């Protein structure tokens, strides 16, 4: 069941795995309970170059492949989905700047993000706007040689601690993306607690009141903020979320194999009961399938193939729904223990549920993937395939 990796990729995966086992996996339940990510672990990610893994080397990044970024997100996701979310949102913003930022924005921001000196978050959703991203209600008004922002954002992962936000707003009816530092006057940040999953991810609501930002805060062209800038960020986000779900699937399988080997009922270990084995079968099969879809998405991304976008959507759709099924079955297999905080599987269930909602919900993926299917398989006669 080992993925087919080159020796270098295998080596990278082994080092991510060892790091996660040593410094993350055993502490994730505590962070989850405290709804907090200790700054030390963020520093550790930064020290190891994990926060700038694929950013260009010219700007202090690691210049690594998308495939190994996926392996990293998968291993971190196996240990702690909140920390995987940090890698997700931080690299979404880094990717958007590397893709559509001006030279000056790249020179100013990428080295800071690559080293982890500054943490970035992605601020698209609002109290009234989620899936229909083009309709964001936050306003940017042209004022002298800058803009003035007014509006609110909600559900911003790591919004409590991020130093800079990629904020989406309408400017005279045109969707725009802006980089806004947290310490600008007019930015107010309020923690959101009590979420079902990724509980340690220091989520926040953000309010912008007469918040003045300079003209060079605009990322990409006016009007292309959602179609290009958010789209690039979300595509990157879907990729690391999909891999994070592979990690959750693997964690579920590991937990269930261990538990069913020990726990006795009706005089035999749980693993002797066929109905339990069936759940293990589905978990193992879907883990393999999800990983293969993610590897394919990673290879296409590294080849800069246009098919990567749909492959990433499919990987995210499949992996997130499979992770939610696996986590639900993992709780089932653990019985009452699974419902308690003594075992990590109830954390996996909440975390997996969140992945079916973020970065385009499962329904939004279903719509997009069907469009892709009609686009690719349209009108090709049966005998010509």
């Amino acid at each position, binding site marked *: 069941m080992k993925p087919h990796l080159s020796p270098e990729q295998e080596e990278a995966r082994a080092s991510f795995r060892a790091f996660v086992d040593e410094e993350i996996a055993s502490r994730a339940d505590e962070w989850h309970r405290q709804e907090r990510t200790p700054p030390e672990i963020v520093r550790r990610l930064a020290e190891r170059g994990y926060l700038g893994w694929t950013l260009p080397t010219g700007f202090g990044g690691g210049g690594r492949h998308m495939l190994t970024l996926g392996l990293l997100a998968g291993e971190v996701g196996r240990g702690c989905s909140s920390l995987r979310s940090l890698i997700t949102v931080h690299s979404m913003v880094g990717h958007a700047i590397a893709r559509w930022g*001006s030279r000056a924005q790249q020179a100013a921001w990428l080295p800071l993000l690559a080293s982890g000196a500054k943490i970035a978050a992605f601020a698209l959703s609002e109290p009234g706007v989620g899936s229909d991203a083009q309709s964001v209600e936050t306003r940017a008004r042209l004022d002298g040689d800058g803009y003035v922002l007014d509006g609110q954002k909600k559900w911003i992962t790591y919004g409590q601690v991020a130093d800079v936000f990629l904020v989406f707003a309408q400017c005279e009816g045109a969707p725009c993306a802006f980089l806004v530092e947290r310490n600008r006057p007019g930015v107010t940040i309020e923690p959101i607690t009590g979420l079902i999953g990724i509980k340690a991810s220091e989520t926040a609501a953000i309010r912008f009141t007469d918040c003045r930002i300079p003209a060079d805060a605009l990322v990409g*062209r006016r009007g292309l903020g959602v179609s290009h800038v958010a*789209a690039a960020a979300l*595509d990157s986000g879907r990729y690391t979320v999909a891999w994070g779900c592979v990690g959750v699937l693997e964690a579920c399988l590991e937990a269930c194999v261990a538990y069913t080997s020990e726990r006795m009922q009706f005089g035999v270990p749980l693993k002797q009961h066929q109905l339990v084995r069936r759940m293990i079968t589905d978990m193992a099969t879907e883990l393999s399938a999800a990983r293969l879809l993610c590897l394919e998405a990673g290879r296409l991304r590294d*080849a800069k*193939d246009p098919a990567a*976008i749909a492959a990433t959507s499919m990987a995210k759709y499949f992996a997130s729904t499979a992770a939610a099924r696996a986590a639900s079955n993992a709780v089932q297999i653990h019985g009452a223990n699974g419902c308690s905080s003594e075992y990590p599987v109830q954390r996996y269930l909440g975390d997996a549920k969140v992945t079916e909602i973020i970065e385009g919900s499962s329904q939004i993926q279903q719509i*997009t993937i069907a469009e892709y299917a009609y*686009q690719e398989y*349209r009108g090709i006669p049966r005998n010509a395939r």
Partner: protein
Amino acid sequence: MTTEHSKAKIAGYLARFFPGHDLREDEDIFSLGFVNSMFAMQLVTFVEHDFGITVENEDLELDNFRSINAIARLVEGKRAATAAG
């Protein structure tokens, strides 16, 4: 690759987004209605991948992507710029 080759390749790629419609080389693809949320990104990635150029922020004028002719012009312009220096 000649301009004609480029145009044929672009037309071949775009055809999948406009089924049953015979796209003219100067036809405004944005006037044909909203395609889908992936289209903008797919188009940029296709142009970069299949013609070996990098579309930068400055190139992101909708006018550069408006028609088969416009995309072919963008590709040639980028290639000439790369060749020159």
